[in-house]
């Protein structure tokens, strides 16, 4: 028998009380192996105004490009210090910060390889269902051949790639509307 998936509804303005217990960066306790990165950014709405009540959820592979999940068939090592999940809210200025490690490349369709990336869900009041996007790393040699980036028009690809910032961190913003609107993916949600 086949059922229909339950309808999505917004997280609303008060999700903090239910979801903050699990707020964490993917880095977790800091025991993960790999190159540490700090990603800072803002979430901006259609007026360019900061969104103080957004929530980002991050899922990523470890430094070897292995996901801590039974369906990852690759013969690559797991990292006991790294689960790969993060949940990060924006603050009153619409800013978020993600502490993590740079993941390794992971397999893509047709024998291709995906460049290191984070997959990200974005939740907020006003969104009846989540938005799905990705963040790639600046200057990574694999970006040019990434099978997902190739599906994005060249003029919009840069919205998915973080920028190096002077503080040594990476900067990556989520822009909900307008000329620099972040690319969001259709996962059939």
């Amino acid at each position: 028998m086949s059922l229909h998936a339950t309808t999505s509804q917004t997280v609303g303005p008060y999700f903090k009380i239910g979801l903050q217990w699990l707020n964490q960066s993917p880095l977790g306790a800091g025991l993960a192996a790999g190159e540490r990165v700090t990603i800072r950014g803002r979430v901006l709405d259609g007026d360019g105004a900061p969104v103080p009540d957004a929530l980002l959820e991050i899922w990523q592979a470890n430094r070897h490009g292995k996901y801590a999940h039974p369906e990852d068939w690759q013969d690559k090592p797991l990292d006991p210090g790294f689960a790969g999940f993060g949940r990060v809210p924006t603050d009153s200025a619409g800013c978020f910060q993600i502490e993590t490690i740079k993941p390794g490349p992971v397999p893509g369709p047709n024998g291709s390889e995906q460049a290191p990336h984070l997959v990200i869900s974005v939740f907020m009041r006003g969104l009846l269902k989540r938005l799905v996007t990705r963040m790639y790393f600046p200057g990574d040699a694999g970006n040019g051949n990434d099978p997902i980036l190739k599906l994005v028009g060249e003029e919009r690809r840069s919205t998915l790639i973080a920028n190096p910032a002077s503080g040594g961190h990476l900067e990556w913003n989520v822009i909900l509307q307008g000329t620099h609107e972040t690319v969001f993916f259709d996962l059939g949600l």
Partner: protein
Amino acid sequence: MKSIAGYRPPYPGTQPGHLHPAYVSSAKRAPTRPLVQIPYTLSEITGPSFDREFVSPAAYDLTRQHQGEPLGERIVVSGRVLDENSRPLANTLVEIWQANAAGRYRHEVDQHDAPLDPNFTGCGQAVTDGEGRYRFVTIRPGEYPWGNHYNAWRPAHIHFSLFGPAFATRLVTQMFFPGDPLLPFDPIFNCTADEKARHRLISIFDWETTVPTQALGYRFDIVLRGRDATPMEE
């Protein structure tokens, strides 16, 4: 090369779009450019796992988080988490949050002129058992006004957040109560075109889980996306 079974697309009309003008705050937050379609890759068919040890065994009971008991009508909310292929989803994290009996959230942004309850925080967690079952004990949340339009009131609801087995199955939704007179007027509940899909968000009063002299039972089954029968050839 490995072929990957993707997830089934939603049955038409059963999921909301991003922009729903009647829900005013979607106007500045819904994307305006078309979403870019991508294939399912290893990144989307995997996702975080949370086993039963991950949450406190007491986290299912929202009426026992403080010294005293919260005010309001005690209820039991339970159900099963299945996928679209009717398979129970075990070890799935379920998070809930809600207003208190007076319709007030314990959140600094909620300025509704209704009392906070010192004995009620309004959040709980559970992990489904081997048959996909979860169970919460809580109090029936109150309706409350909001600023969407003149004299706007949200029907009583409990927010639900679920992960399922993959990034692709993540779901946040709301559970409503049968017979709530506010449902026809709520732009959030009505954001979905398909009437049957909307009505699946309404819990069912359930004698079987009603605890004599203690609490009425409401049943709310949740379906997460299921795998496509045929793997996509890569």
